[in-house]
Each structure stands twice: as C-alpha cells, then as structure tokens.
C-alpha cells in the first residue's frame, strides 16, 4: 500500500541549467521508492526533458486548445470596439468593416467577443500543444509540449497543473526564469525549492527568483547544486536573508557522467539517495 499525500512541491530556479530536472526527477524516483504516491509534472513545456530521465510509457495524449476570435465580416458594422479593447493588438479594425486577427498575439481574454455589438465575433479553438500522460514505474508522469512557434506557455502550464492529483506528492518541474510561465507554474504550490549554483550567475538569478516567491507569499528554501565550485556568496546571501539552504548536491564528475547518459543519480550513485530522502521528508512535513 502506498502512502497518500496531498502536497504540491515546485522545483524552480532563476537561472537555467542549475539542475531543476535532475533534482525533480530524482526526488520523484526516491519518493516512489519510499512507498509514497508520487506524480511528476513537467511544466517546462517549451522544452520538457524530464522524460529523458524518467523514461515513461506514454499512455494517453490530449490536445490543448485556447479560444481566439473569429470574425464574421458580413455581420461586422465597422465600429472598431474590438480593436480598442484588445491590449495585445491581436484584433484590429481597419477602414469600413475590415477586421484583422493575429491569433499568435491573442491572450484569450474574450474582451472582443463581449464588446462586439453585432455579435460578429465567435471563439475559435487554436491548438497550442499537447499533454502526455504515462507511468514511470510507480510514478504518475505528466508533461506538456508547446507547439513550436507558439507563445501560449502559461495557458498550457495551467492545463498541465489541472491534472495534479489530490492524493499524491506532486513534484512540478518549473521552467527557468522569473517571467509569466514561472509565475503560472509555482502559483498555488505548497512549497518552492529554488535550485541554484554557487556562482555569481547563480546568485544573481537566485535573487530574482527569491523576489518572485516572496511577492507570491510562497514558502521556499534553496538547494545548491554543484556545491564546491564557485564561491561562498550564495551561502552568505541566504544567511543574510534568513533563507534556509535545505539541500546541497556536490560538484561530482560522476553525477555529470550519470546525467549525460540519461541515468538517475540515485541509481548510478546510491550514496546520494539519503540526501534526496531527507529532502523529501523536510519538504513534506
């Protein structure tokens, strides 16, 4: 019998390439090994890569659409209200009843549909990507894949997160950065683990990420990957800011070698398993 949880943990970072996916996938793997019900959701939908390590069997694929406006020019009276309300220039009124739409710029607010006095605008589904569901051992695997050239990242992330189960430890792999996709991915989570590296670049972007989670009032702590390289500035910053450093993964060439072949660290290097076990317990008390 597996232990039920109802905790959502986000693995985020300001800087890209700090080890979010490495830590997220190993956490999921170790948690499943501890007998917990665990779900891994890759919200880095522009380039999901957790599947490389978890190697899930994909069982189901679901298309995700958003609504964009479709204008019936025969009904259009040329009032121009649709273009006036749109903040993204996704719909624009030219002379007479000529209305142009730019689907890629639309944020699906529905404003143009509502203000049109002639009911000439209808919602039309635009396919922005897919969500794939599968199993990696006992781990429930979910990831989103945004279509190339599409920019509706937060909409797809929101859809991926709608599949969070309420009886599992849900581990969310967050995209890098501190912009809208990250806000969407960490929103409503119970705990955010900010993964960084002990370098000036890591520190700079960690400060941005800390600003974001503090603005959002989310509980968080820091994990330092490749501990031993760089300098001590990340630790000094965390101490000064009263931020807990709850995990350190050393700079070990064998970890990089394991990663480069798509293996899980805890499988190739069992001595690191205890660190991940302790981290899960610390995050889920």
């Amino acid at each position, binding site marked *: 019998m597996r232990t039920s949880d109802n905790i959502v943990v986000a693995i985020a970072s300001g800087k890209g390439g700090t080890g979010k996916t490495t830590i997220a996938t190993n956490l999921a793997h170790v948690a499943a090994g501890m007998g917990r019900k665990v779900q891994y959701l890759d919200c880095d939908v522009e380039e999901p890569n957790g599947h490389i390590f978890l190697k899930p069997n994909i069982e189901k694929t679901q298309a995700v659409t958003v609504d964009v406006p479709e204008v019936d020019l025969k009904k259009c009276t040329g009032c121009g209200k649709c273009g006036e309300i749109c903040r*993204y*220039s996704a719909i*624009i009124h*030219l*002379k007479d009843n000529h209305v*142009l739409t*730019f689907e890629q*710029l639309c944020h699906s607010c529905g404003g143009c549909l509502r203000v049109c006095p002639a009911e000439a605008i209808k919602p039309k589904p635009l396919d922005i990507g897919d969500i794939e569901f599968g199993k990696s051992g006992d781990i429930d695997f979910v990831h989103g894949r945004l279509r190339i050239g599409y920019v509706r990242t937060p909409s797809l992330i929101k859809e991926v997160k709608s599949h969070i189960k309420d009886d599992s430890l849900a581990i969310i792999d967050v995209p890098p950065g501190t912009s809208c996709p990250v806000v969407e991915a960490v929103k409503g989570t119970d705990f955010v683990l900010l993964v960084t590296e002990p370098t000036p670049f890591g520190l700079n972007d960690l400060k941005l990420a800390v600003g974001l989670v503090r603005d959002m009032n989310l509980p968080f702590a820091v994990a330092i990957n490749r501990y031993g390289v760089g300098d001590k500035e990340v630790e000094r910053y965390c101490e000064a800011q009263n931020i807990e450093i709850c995990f350190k993964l050393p700079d070990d060439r064998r970890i990089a070698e394991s990663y480069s072949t798509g293996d899980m660290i805890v499988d190739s290097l069992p001595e690191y398993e205890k660190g991940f076990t302790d981290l899960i317990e610390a995050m889920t008390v």
Partner: protein
Amino acid sequence: MKIAITSRGETLDSEVDPRFGRAEYFLIGELESMDFRAIENKNVNAAGGAGINSAKVVIDAGAEAVLTGNCGPNAERTLSAGGVRLYTGVKGTAAEAVELCKGGKLTEAGGPNVESHSGMNK
C-alpha cells in the same frame, strides 16, 4: 498620391527611419504638392504590436503607400489588408526617398523583409 515615409525627424531633410513599427515619425503627404506633415509614432516603445498599430496609423491617415527601411510580417499583413503599397529598403533622407518615388525608381516589396520584433531595442 498620399504617401507615408518613416522618419527620424519631423521634416523632409530627416533620415528615413529604417524601422517601420518603431519609427520615430511618419511623414505623411501628397507626392504632387510636397506638403508633408509629421505624426509622432506612439508605438516606438510599445511592448508588442508596434507594427500592427503603426500600420493602422498610416492607414487611418489615408496613405496609399509606405516608404521605409524594414517591415515585419504583422505590419506587412496589416498594410496589405488596408490596401497600402509597401516599399522597403529605402535609405537616405525623406526628401531623397520622395524623389525616388516620384521618379518611379522604387520597387514594391513582395512581402515583409525582416522577422517580427526586428526593430526592438534599436
């Protein structure tokens, strides 16, 4: 024929602004009378949609042709829908551009000549 020239300044001796969507000014006037007025472009620092909104400005001003350096796909599509002819690759002063246009020396662009966002941060 009424034309619009993207310009760095308010007069015909100004340089042609190489950006369409984020041009500093549009000089709009009749080729025949050479009477041009400047419209300051409010889309210079727009977060997005600069090309589309700039195209709307010149369409609303009644221009039938645009003379500029570079024009991206969204602006080109809007201009085309508004029935505005597009001439890209135009350099030198606005006055020189007008002369080239009068002499029939400009070739109409068959489409956009740059990618979206090419005029950002320039």
